[in-house]
């Protein structure tokens, strides 16, 4: 018996249908054909399977595989080549992004991602201001960077509840990725 997650099924079909056209994946495999990561790894990273499993709502099966090997999902380099070539105009990278969001919430993420979110929460930027670089900026004649509204960033991230998701990971960094 395969467990079907109806929420995932609905969300993924919703992404597929999009705004103007009703599109549907017929498993032609063009996404795999043009994917540079699939070229290097074959079945270990397989966007066609990701689209199929998620559209069917096979979340448990997919995430069990991701738990064994995060690369199955996180191998996507987000180059969006598959999106350009898909004859059904399925937003494959958006589906993968949706699944990555779910994977982060479930703790199945390379540590880089929650870590990067925490950096943004604390500094307002993914790459914080550095005193040595500021000196270099002045030497180059472009002055110091504008003020960063760190407080507003923090308020927004608390309002969406992401602070809880990324904090939770901090306590159990072991065992991820």
């Amino acid at each position, binding site marked *: 018996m395969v467990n079907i997650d109806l929420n995932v099924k609905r969300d993924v079909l919703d992404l597929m249908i999009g705004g103007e056209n009703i599109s549907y994946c017929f498993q032609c495999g063009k996404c795999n054909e043009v994917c540079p990561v699939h070229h290097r790894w074959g079945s270990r990273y397989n966007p066609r399977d990701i689209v199929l499993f998620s559209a069917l709502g096979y979340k448990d099966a997919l995430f069990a595989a991701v738990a064994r090997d995060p690369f199955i999902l*996180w191998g996507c380099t987000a180059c969006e080549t598959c999106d350009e070539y898909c004859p059904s105009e399925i937003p494959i990278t958006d589906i993968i992004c949706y699944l990555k*969001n779910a994977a982060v919430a479930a703790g199945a993420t390379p540590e880089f991602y929650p870590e990067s979110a925490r950096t*943004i929460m604390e500094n307002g*930027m993914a790459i914080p201001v550095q005193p040595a670089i500021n000196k*270099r900026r002045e030497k180059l004649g472009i002055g110091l*960077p504008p003020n960063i509204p760190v407080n507003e*960033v923090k308020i927004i*991230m608390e309002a969406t509840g*992401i602070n809880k998701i990324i904090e939770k990971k901090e306590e159990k960094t072991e065992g991820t990725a």
Partner: protein
Amino acid sequence: MTSEYKLFPGCLMTNRLPFLEASAKIVFDELGVGYSSAEFACCPNPVGLKFVDNKTWCALAARNLVEAEKENKNIMSLCNGCAQSLIIADHEMKHDPILKSEVNDILKKVGKEYKGTINIVHFVKVLYEEVGIEKIKASIKHPLTGLKVACHPGCHYARPSHILKVEEDVMNLKYLRRLVEATGATVVDYEEENLCCGNVVRNTDPYTANTMLKSKIDGAKRAGADCLAVNCPSCFQQFDSEQPKLKAMAEEGQEYKFPTFYITELLAMAMGKDPATLGIKFHRNKGKEALAKVNL
């Protein structure tokens, strides 16, 4: 004359690669492209925070858009990722009223409201479409004649094409090529031009990223290029900083010391600016041999 833009350099350029920002500002000043700064935060990273939580990503992007809406000015991005994040967030909110109202509920807490009244544009598009190649050619004082350049426009400059609508043919991009040609340099074709630099997958698996980086460099070398030209700081960093990591997978006799320049660096040098004032010395790979070819 072009109108003034709110400049969005992005955090990688601002806080790690300021010499790229400096070269862009030199080029804009020379060509009369107006710009000013604003209190922008992280774009946020379309291949970082967007993967963690799409709604948070969208709300933070909307906050940035509001900063420009306050002044009724369009945003000009110096980075593929920032341009892509801001354009897609704007597009998503314009096509999804529920998302827009959810985001605005969040923005209320910081006294802001997203309306969707401004545009976001990548600087390459501004240079090509607004300034124009003729005007750029007229500003060239030191043509880079003889320099062979492999172009790398980067994934998030133009994809997804139905949203970004940057150029007509997304798999055969020409703006960066025309800008390189305007410097007097020669563009060389190579098969891997549309291949990803590998930056994103580096966070998951550096080995995969290195194989992609290697394919790019090998392709550019095979085509006889002296250097790469890029218009994205993430791609720049991948090419300029990560090549030493290819040592372990290099074939015998192969070295990975292939130089990379930002398109605004090439333009500024062709406009007669000294590589030293531009900060080429801050590159990991200073491209001395390539620059010597054009007496720089």
